[in-house]
């Protein structure tokens, strides 16, 4: 361990276990269990989707706005790229780059959430897709779709929200001069994981 910041703050997070820092190891463990939680929801969706194949809305029913969500996917991928740019900035000790890209990553997450709120508002108020009711053009299809759709996307949306807050806390730390490369890497892991899960959710729920 030889980064200047780590030397300055001999922090618990920087101690090593299994060759990686404690903090990073803990984040990976968390992501593993969090991935299992997501998989529980996604597996439920898949099981219900397969079992109710004939009464499940299809993408061509246009219940969900695929172009808008594709744009949202694009935004989340962009925010992952800004996150790695922030990490590179941290590694090179370039605080200016670090601050800029952490802020841009937060902006990406915020735009994603904004679009998701708009999507929900449109679905609930204009199309009538709520937990127990379906839009008129798919009134003969199962409302299980709505329940599982909201469960999966809400759970993910809350992760994005937490990620933006987490990044905000890290950004405050950077502004006060208290940050380490390790901490930036850990928040990056969380952020990329949220992106990774969205890639799966987008495909399973929106495209299939």
């Amino acid at each position, binding site marked *: 361990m030889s980064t200047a910041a780590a030397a300055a703050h001999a922090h618990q997070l920087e101690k090593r276990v299994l060759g990686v820092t404690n903090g990073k190891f803990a984040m990976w463990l968390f992501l593993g269990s969090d991935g299992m939680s997501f998989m529980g929801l996604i597996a439920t969706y898949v099981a219900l989707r397969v079992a109710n194949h004939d009464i499940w809305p299809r993408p061509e029913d246009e219940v969900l706005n695929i172009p808008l969500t594709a744009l949202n996917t694009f935004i989340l991928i962009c925010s992952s*790229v800004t996150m790695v740019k922030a990490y590179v900035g941290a590694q090179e000790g370039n605080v200016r780059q670090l601050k800029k890209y952490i802020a841009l990553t937060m902006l990406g997450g915020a735009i994603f959430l904004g679009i998701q709120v708009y999507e929900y508002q449109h679905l609930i108020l204009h199309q009538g897709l709520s937990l127990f009711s379906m839009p008129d053009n798919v009134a003969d299809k199962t409302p299980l779709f709505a329940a599982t759709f909201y469960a999966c996307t809400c759970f993910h949306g809350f992760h994005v929200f937490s990620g933006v807050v987490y990044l905000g806390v890290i950004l405050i730390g950077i502004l006060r001069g208290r940050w380490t490369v390790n901490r930036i890497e850990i928040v990056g892991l969380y952020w990329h994981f949220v992106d990774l899960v969205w890639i799966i959710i987008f495909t399973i729920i929106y495209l299939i």
Partner: protein
Amino acid sequence: MAEEHKHPNYMAIFWILLVLTVLEVAAAKMPAWFGEAWWTITVVVLILMALTKALYVALFFMHLKFERKTLIVIVCAPVFLAVVLVVALLPDVGFQVGG
């Protein structure tokens, strides 16, 4: 730093993810274009593309490609369990379909 390594080409990963996303959105329309018979192949293609994207994110953005073997093994455990979870639900699906 112990885990110092050359940066992967992040922009290349970005373009791969972007192109795959566009291809996915296009591929999702195959049953509507070519007929119902294409549904199964569409699902397989879409899932393969999604897994490819997820793999690129994990390997390069999350630096898993450059991590120690121990960590990779630990990370693979929940991925394996996730697959088991889906497979374990399949009999239930069978019962429901059967009536």
